[in-house]
């Protein structure tokens, strides 16, 4: 216990090790970002508007390249509304025109009405650039941790503390 404190070389190694873990995670995230061309290649579902397909806390993998075909009606996309930073996961239900200026309308499967109300004032349709990716794969429940963390901020401190303690105390 606390052996790292007695040996500065070991302490440095542990700090480096911790840094390595953090930077690996960061590089993997950014690498996924580059591959999928999406600023946020993995998202956690925050609302129940796509139930029963997606529940709160489910993990979605996004793909934002149009290699074979354009983003089309029926795809489940994640979009950001102008000037709002909350990503929304809904299904494209209408598409008028093609190319980057095609007008897209979205709707949550579980919602009665389409998303016109959610869009910015004066915005009736989305364009391709508003979309940050189409959902292509799904893992249930795993993302619930992040919802817990954002709803109970003190958990963040506790978790960081435990992680830091573990790394410092660990002998490897």
């Amino acid at each position: 216990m606390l052996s790292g404190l007695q040996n500065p070389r070991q302490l440095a190694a542990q700090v480096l090790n911790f840094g390595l873990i953090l930077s690996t995670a960061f590089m993997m995230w950014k690498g996924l970002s580059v591959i999928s061309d999406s600023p946020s290649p993995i998202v956690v579902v925050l609302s129940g508007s796509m139930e029963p397909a997606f529940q709160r806390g489910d993990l979605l993998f996004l793909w934002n390249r149009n290699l074979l075909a354009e983003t089309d009606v029926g795809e489940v996309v994640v979009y950001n509304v102008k000037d709002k930073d909350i990503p929304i996961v809904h299904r494209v239900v209408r598409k008028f025109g093609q190319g980057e200026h095609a007008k897209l309308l979205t709707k949550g499967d579980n919602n009665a009405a389409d998303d016109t109300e959610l869009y910015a004032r004066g915005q009736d349709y989305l364009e391709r650039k508003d979309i940050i990716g189409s959902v292509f794969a799904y893992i249930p429940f795993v993302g619930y941790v992040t919802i817990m963390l954002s709803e109970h901020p003190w958990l963040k401190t506790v978790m960081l503390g435990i992680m830091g303690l573990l790394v410092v105390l660990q002998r490897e």
Partner: protein
Amino acid sequence: MYNSLTRIQNVFGFFTTVAFVVAAFIAASDFTYDRTPSAHIKTTNVQVVKGRPHYYSTKKEEYAIMKFSLDADLSSLFTWNTKQVFVYVTAEWTSPSKSPASAAATNQTNSAVIWDSIITTPSSDHLANIGPATLKKLRKSAAGKAVDPKRGLLSLKNQRPKYQITHPTGRLAETTDVRLRVHYNVQPWVGFLTWSQTERDFGRWLRMKDGLSRAFTLPAVKKKDEGKKAKA
């Protein structure tokens, strides 16, 4: 070295590894099942009426109301990894482009969902947004079954569309070459989301057989009083 903390770490690490490997196997098992979807769709009654996009709007737009009959066999989509199948019918048509840059002959393709339905499997019934009575009925229809392929059999006669569609220009009447197409989206419990293939087969998954209506022309706008009746 082997204190309780490292043991907990090891157990948790092993648990996540095993969980993810099992999940990967389940996801991969999708590709081992045959998919032989088929659908027949035809329009039964098509109307175009004038209306407003919302209550406070003064803009008048033309809305198409396309009633249709649909017979579909999507039963092969229901496997142990199917959480729900989302079936949707789109109307597809082209309209002359409005942009001045490409004013000449370029046509704009349009597609809009006119009807959709969520088909849950018995194991995901409890997640559906339905009333207790409907849920009870649904449960009863598949008592004791974990997978119920029968739910993939659709037979709709003269179905009203759920969505009355329009075009950003507000004009829709007398559009030619409109077609209805049936699509599906399979939502797994874990793994890849898949959509209906229209052109090519993919391994054991065959493309949608038929699923496209004959081309039809939208009629002229109905008179006001008749339109009101149709909306009520």
